[in-house]
């Protein structure tokens, strides 16, 4: 269970991310010791994800704080998603159209992008072919997260 003070900390953390396009360090949200303690509690409740060794933010789902293979252009910035689901989730969370850039895990070299509208229109383009609607989101080994 996340209590109200920790919910507020989470709100301020996400608000900082959206405003600045990067995750805050603890001192940017107030007393760093209290902030890290709150982040640890939120981590335990799967509301944020910390680097275990440093207590720095690693994921603010659906956003990744570190570079990944899923790059998203939305709301005037570039972001990183933790996976395909999260990449689309960034557009949903920001209530913005966006473009997702990644590469097929199979053929790798082919980079392609998707545009995504809040009206759920999806178009897929390949850098090497003019148009394809056969692209698929595939899940492989993990179950859907609970968060």
């Amino acid at each position, binding site marked *: 269970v996340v209590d109200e003070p920790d919910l507020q900390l989470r709100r301020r953390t996400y608000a900082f991310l959206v405003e600045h396009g990067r995750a805050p360090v603890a001192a940017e949200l107030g007393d760093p010791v209290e902030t890290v303690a709150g982040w640890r509690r939120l981590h335990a409740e799967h509301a944020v994800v910390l680097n275990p060794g440093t207590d720095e933010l690693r994921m603010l789902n659906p956003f990744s704080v570190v570079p990944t293979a899923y790059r998203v252009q939305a709301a005037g910035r570039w972001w990183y998603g933790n996976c395909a689901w999260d990449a689309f989730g960034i557009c949903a969370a920001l209530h913005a159209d966006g473009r997702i850039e990644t590469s097929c895990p199979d053929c790798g070299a082919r980079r392609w992008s998707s545009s995504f509208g809040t009206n759920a229109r999806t178009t897929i383009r390949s850098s090497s072919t003019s148009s*394809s609607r056969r692209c*698929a989101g*595939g899940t492989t080994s993990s179950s*859907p997260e609970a968060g």
Partner: protein
Amino acid sequence: MNLFRSEEHIVRWLAGREPGATISVAKLSELSQAWWDDRVSPDWVPHTREQNQAILERLGLTGAFWQLA
């Protein structure tokens, strides 16, 4: 979750390994809207397992793979 060019690419990439589940990009966008829409809202509170499971079921994502722990 990975994004592939086509189902043929998924099969080739799996190389005989057991597949998870495959959904279309259109379904993925629907799922993302339902799952993440409120994530940066000031009113966000954690979803319950039941709420999340209901999202999956509403989108027709049923079966063992889509059962939340």
